[in-house]
């Protein structure tokens, strides 16, 4: 079972982890990236770097390691970010066939995302990647988002759609939405007015491809009226789609009813 985690350092990581690393400074990136790749080489993982050549690459590269710079691959015009998901899936299968323990990916997201990428696009693509990771793929993916490159709202969005966060803990996401099983997603943490827009984008990202979204709220500490309204608004945007909220605590259930959302016209249902 996947459990949400927010920690200051990049290690330890384990197979199945999908980490949002909000990188505070370039020197910290170089040091931690080196350790991450060295650990992987030592343990028998296949390494893949998406981005420019980090100094550590020369130390750890092996004949089967992969270095792909999405920005260069398209003449600097950015990458088809859907390719990230299929590439990870494909290379994880290859790594397995080749006898590696797992595929270990370091993605420099400023090289992956084209300029002008929106929080909604981040939510859409990262959630698809998380579905792959949570579906049993033998991989570890660290998505490195330098805080000097991305605006705060995009960093907040990125953090909210990974089960694991690394970086300064004051920047840790208030909530995390991540895959638990086919058609089932976990919602952890707190959804309030500060994070309501990110929450809306994340739920939209899931509902787009899912007629019935089952949302386990066992790890949800608090959701306020704006968060509940965003849940309803997202469901309303996809006629015929439904959200089943499961494992919610008594306060969540009470507030849901007090706000009148337990209405048959609302396509969101709280399971008893």
């Amino acid at each position, binding site marked *: 079972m996947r459990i949400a985690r927010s920690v200051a350092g990049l290690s330890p990581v384990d197979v199945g982890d999908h980490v949002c690393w909000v990188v505070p400074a370039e020197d910290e990136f170089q040091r931690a990236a080196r350790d991450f790749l060295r650990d992987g080489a030592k343990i028998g993982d296949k390494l893949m770097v998406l981005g420019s050549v980090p100094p550590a690459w020369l130390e750890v590269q092996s004949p089967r390691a992969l270095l792909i710079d999405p920005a260069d691959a398209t003449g600097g015009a950015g990458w088809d970010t859907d390719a990230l998901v299929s590439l990870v899936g494909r290379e994880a299968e290859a790594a397995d066939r080749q006898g590696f323990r797992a595929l270990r990916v370091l993605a420099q997201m400023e090289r992956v995302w084209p300029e002008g990428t929106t929080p909604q696009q981040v939510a859409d693509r990262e959630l698809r990647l998380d579905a792959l990771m949570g579906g049993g793929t033998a991989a570890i993916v660290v998505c490195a988002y330098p805080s000097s490159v991305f605006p705060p709202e995009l960093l907040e969005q990125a953090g909210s759609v990974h089960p694991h966060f690394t970086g300064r803990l004051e920047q840790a996401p208030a909530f995390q939405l991540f895959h638990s099983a086919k058609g089932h997603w976990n919602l952890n943490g707190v959804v309030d*007015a500060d994070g309501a827009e990110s929450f809306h984008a994340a739920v939209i990202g899931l509902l787009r491809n899912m007629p019935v979204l089952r949302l386990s709220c066992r790890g949800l500490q608090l959701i306020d*009226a704006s968060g509940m309204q965003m849940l309803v608004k997202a469901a309303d945007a996809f006629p015929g789609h439904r959200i089943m909220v499961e494992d919610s*605590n008594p*306060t969540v259930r009470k507030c849901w009813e007090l*706000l009148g959302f337990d209405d048959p016209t609302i396509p969101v249902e709280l399971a008893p």
Partner: protein
Amino acid sequence: MTSPPAAPTPDPRVAAFRHELYPYDGDTAFLQGAMSFIDDALSADETVLVAVSEDKQHMLRQALGRTTARERLSFVDTGALGRNPGRLIPAWQDWIAKSVSDGLPVRGISESPWGTATPAERGELSYHEWLLNRAFADSPAWWLLCPYDTTAVEPTVLDSAGRCHPFHFLEGAHGDNPTFVDGPFVFDDLSAARDPDHVLIYGAGDLGRVRDEITAGAGKHGLAGHRLQDLLVAATEVAANSVRHGGGSGTLRTWASGDTFVCQFDDAGHIRDPLAGRMRPAPHQIGGRGLWLAQQLCDLVEIRSTAEDGTTVRLSTYLS
């Protein structure tokens, strides 16, 4: 301080809702007046809802005996609403809506628990009486009798009741109340804040800090579990209102007084609608849910708001 200006409402003396003060002197007089009101209603094939204390319910049940019209009289359970007067208007709206949907004209008898209410609760109960005229200004016709025991209720409460009821029931006769004032409600000052355990200035992105401060303060006084969770949701709503509507920031103070844990939020906003938080939100409406949730989740919500001085929202949670 007076209530915020409200949108013009129909003259309470010509509105379909008849809000009537019944000052009485002791239990015998209560029974006499209430039974007269009930008998008139039942004779006219009207339905009657009664919200009074358990001892008064007992008196009425005994007086009613086995009358055949008893099925058109209901004792409503105000105990389930808790002590917060901010929950009474939606409850009456629900009760009235149900009776009206049954096709029956409605009368009600409502006596607030003046004897057991705290001073702060008495202030909010008086404000509730004033708000009833606004809340039911456009409602289907119904008639509410509000008994006040003049031997037990404080004179200031009676004075306020006199100003809030357009009609009265005196010496067996129903008529216009000459002391009624169709104007703003005059609030008592909030009780002085104790030296706060915690003071926090908050702004955008600080809702988590607001909850952390309250959790720390509440923990010192033994407030935990679902009661604390309820308070945290209410506090989140009020603090978010400060950020969204109150100038972008606010100040939180928390303290305990007796058996009550208090969170006070001050900001530069102005709540213009005196019924804010008193009406059940529609499922698809945009916004307007924060104060409603606060009223439903806290034991008492006191709001003072003017354009000049900004807004103070005080949330009280009882510790026992």
